[in-house]
């Protein structure tokens, strides 16, 4: 079995580039777990994932986990799923609470960071910390992915090294739907792939 055949239907030339790239994923919930799966299938070479939660039943409505994962560390469960897609993927998993003090050290080897937190306060410090330390390294974030439907409101906005996907309004207090969260997560992965292959849009 030639594992490389996984990528036979990918866009020609992209796997070669992506296989040499490292993406950091800050948070392994609805955004991070789904974005990680998409990047793995796209042929990314290495993922650095970090989270400090264990899988709960209430995560299964939108996150890339299964019943048998409940109680496991999200980082362990996600790493196993990603390696089950592509055993050649390099995964560095950190079961740790990310803070402004450890973020840059953990992800310094990444070519690009995906912000995949749920709380807006944490999104805010992540973006600030990243941009102050790595003003030229892309950070792909998400804001506003709650509710259901309203697909056309999901969009991408860019400024400098910041890319942000979502509708910028809906709040998780209204409830989260797998389809809409996964769209946002896949938009993040899609933006990341484009940046890694072609460079960031000015």
């Amino acid at each position, binding site marked *: 079995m030639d594992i490389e055949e996984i990528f036979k239907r990918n866009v020609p030339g992209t796997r070669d580039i992506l296989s040499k790239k490292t993406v950091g994923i800050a*948070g392994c*919930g*609805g*955004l*991070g777990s789904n974005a990680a799966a998409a990047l793995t299938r796209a042929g990314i070479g290495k993922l650095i994932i970090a989270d400090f939660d264990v899988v709960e039943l209430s995560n299964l409505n939108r996150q890339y986990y299964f019943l048998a994962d409940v109680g496991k560390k999200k980082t362990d469960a996600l790493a196993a799923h990603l390696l089950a897609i592509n055993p050649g993927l390099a995964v560095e998993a950190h079961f740790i609470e990310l803070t402004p003090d450890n973020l840059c050290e953990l992800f310094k080897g990444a070519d690009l960071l995906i912000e*995949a*937190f*749920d*709380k*807006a*306060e944490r*999104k*805010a410090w992540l*973006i*600030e910390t990243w*941009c*102050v330390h790595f*003003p030229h390294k892309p950070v792909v*974030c*998400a*804001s*506003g*992915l*709650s509710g259901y439907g309203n697909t056309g409101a999901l969009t991408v*906005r860019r*400024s*400098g*090294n*910041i890319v*942000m996907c*979502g*509708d*910028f*309004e*809906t*709040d*998780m*207090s209204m409830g*989260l739907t797998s389809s809409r*969260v996964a769209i946002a997560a896949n938009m993040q992965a899609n933006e990341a792939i484009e940046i890694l292959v072609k460079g960031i849009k000015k």
Partner: protein
Amino acid sequence: MILINNRDKLEWQEGMTVRALLTEMGYTYTLITVTVNGELVPKENYEEHLVPDGAEVTVFHLAHGG
């Protein structure tokens, strides 16, 4: 003239800070990320950071959920 979020225009004033711009535009959200000409302005600098004439400003609202 200042262009905000690639959409709204605001008359530039001498000494205009990020904070003044946000107030002028009526942004009431507390959880935001602001860039001026593509560079992030840390929150603690909003009161001092001057917005130059002709600047392109982006204000991202950060909503909970992930």
